[in-house]
């Protein structure tokens, strides 16, 4: 019986959630840098499993997969760090190594157009899909990214968004009461 291309259990950080499955929605925060805690470590450039040349290619891949011109470099450094850490697993390292060999060192210095063309050819490979997932998992989970893209996050501790803008949109007409409902605490 055929199973998935990603054998479950291979790519999950094993520190906390050893029983979990594959790269699946939600798991991308686990082990991802939250807040500014990881800043110092990420910025110091220390690599455990990748060479600095490999890290440069990974960085270029992340910037091709999710190119945000205004997003600080540090956000992409987090991605490199996450992939470097995941490469502690032998099987993952092997997937990453062989994928990076296919890309070649010159990938990092190519134009965006060239990089896109190269990655398109690899789009269906396990390597590319793994890097894509890991990139998206890490890139958008940091407090840095949330602030950059304007996601305000958890709201329970602040009383929700009930009185903090859940219905402050003014560029379209309001919805008639029959099709919506009263706002608690407001006169109908």
């Amino acid at each position: 019986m055929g199973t998935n291309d990603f054998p479950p259990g291979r790519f999950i950080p094993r520190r906390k959630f050893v029983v979990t499955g594959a790269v699946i929605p939600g798991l991308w925060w686990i082990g991802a840098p939250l807040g500014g805690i990881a800043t110092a470590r990420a910025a110091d450039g220390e690599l455990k499993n990748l060479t600095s040349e490999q890290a440069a290619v990974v960085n270029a891949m992340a910037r091709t997969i999710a190119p945000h011109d205004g997003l600080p470099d540090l956000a992409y450094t987090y991605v490199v760090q996450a992939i470097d850490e995941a490469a502690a697993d032998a099987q993952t390292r092997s997937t990453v190594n062989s994928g990076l060999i296919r890309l070649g060192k010159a990938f990092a210095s190519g134009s965006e157009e060239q990089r896109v063309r190269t990655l398109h050819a690899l789009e269906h490979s396990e390597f590319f899909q793994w890097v894509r997932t890991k990139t998206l998992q890490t890139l958008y989970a940091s407090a840095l990214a949330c602030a950059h893209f304007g996601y305000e996050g958890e709201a329970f501790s602040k009383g929700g968004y009930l009185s903090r803008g859940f219905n402050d949109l003014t560029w379209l007409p309001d919805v008639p009461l029959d099709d919506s409902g009263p706002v608690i605490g407001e006169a109908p």
Partner: protein
Amino acid sequence: MGRINNDDSNAVVIIGSGAGGGTLAHELTRRGVKVVLLEAGARQSLATFSQNPGEAFAQLTWLDRRTSTGSWTVPQDFPGLPSWTCKTVGGTTVHWTGATPRIRDWEVRARTTYGDVQGTSLIDWPIDYAELEHYYELAEKRMVVTRRHGNPGLPASNHFKVMYNGAKRIGYKHVHTGYMAINSRPADERGFCIQQGFCIQGCKTGAKWSTLYTEIPRAEATGNLDLRIRSRAVRIEHGNDGRVTGVVYRDSQGREQRQKARIVCVACNSVETARLLLLSDSGRFPHGLANSSDQVGRHFCHHVAGFIWGAFDKPIHFYRGTTLAGIIEDETKHDPARGFAGGYHLELAALDLPSLPISGFPSTLWGRDLAFFIDHYTRLAGMLINGEDLPRATNRVTLNHEVKDEFGLPVANVHCDEHPNDTAMRAHAQRQGRALYESVGALRTTTSRQTPATHNMCTARMSKDPRDGVTNAYGRAHDVPNLFISDGSVLTTPGSANPTLTIVALALRQAEHIAREMGARHL
């Protein structure tokens, strides 16, 4: 809460504490029936729900291994996660979004309405719709559904304003903030919705109905419930007469336990319900318990589901507010002129930033196209398609003997090949959704492919003819008189409604039936 002896063969054993199992447990215990409720997961509370989306996912989700095959796109986009359900007290009622539309009268006559659609295994429900309506009313009152029985609707969020205006501009008439089991005002000793946008992480105000903090504590208060958490059923046993006699399970320490039973009710959500029946094979039932018809696990339905996104040049902040409070009902009809049988709902849907690119976009989206939508995060609007997929005998849950779980048992494999009817419906819904957003000025729109099944249905379906399904109209196994199925597995066909309301309605009906049969000493 009373402890029931493992050898007490008078106990009713319910496996699973979600919408079906949790409701059934309350209904039986309040009638004086002793119930052992086995729940594989741990118990959370309003206080322990995490507000970090990633942690919440790990805290609530069923992450035991499953595999998936077939031509559907889920194995590519969500490897290892064919189905997104919960493993916690309260089951998927902890992470559900609260949407409670009803299945329509013509949908329960699916075979009659749609005719003989090639490559499907359509049948009609064995229940009269008028009777189902009665239980819908009871379920809606219990769950305090908005816009029903005098309950006010939820207020319109920014996000809903965009959907509403777009819907009206392209001609839709039936658009509102939904039938939601989320308190629009304090009710049922629970809080009201404060528009925090964290519905699927566990609602910290308890505004959203969940068996975790409604049915289960009320069942405990009767003194008749023995809830055993972190207890995973692995086998249902039967005697020489073919009646079930008890349930073998692994307790929180991994030890094997055996609870005797007068009646067993299975409510593990469709994938695991089918798996447990298949795991419970025997000399008498060589293909799995209650499976003489070879229907267990077949006809797996998951709804035609997927996101439609619109990016605008003005602020929306779609993450502020009730996640799914918005619905368009106009496409819930059978109109073959659209090129497919059955209908669909369009429902409001927002995702937190970290979830959006993985859950909301297909694995084929990357580069500048992906970046465009993320760059517009505060100016995005989203909808989820919730359409009726047609049952196929070959879309099924089976045991994958090559992959084993922590107890050495084969995991479930979910196989799906999308029927052309589903593909046509999805394309129609995506066109409509894009047009809706364009009518209110969207800069660009995009869509996802099929999302992991949060609505798992029909794997032990109710049928009039025992050859067509697994249970009768009360969810009682055709083969085994004291075995019941009490979750979405029994839906004969999926309809276009989110299934929880129907599961609760059928559980209320089943509880009456069981109590009546026990009283008459038929059970």
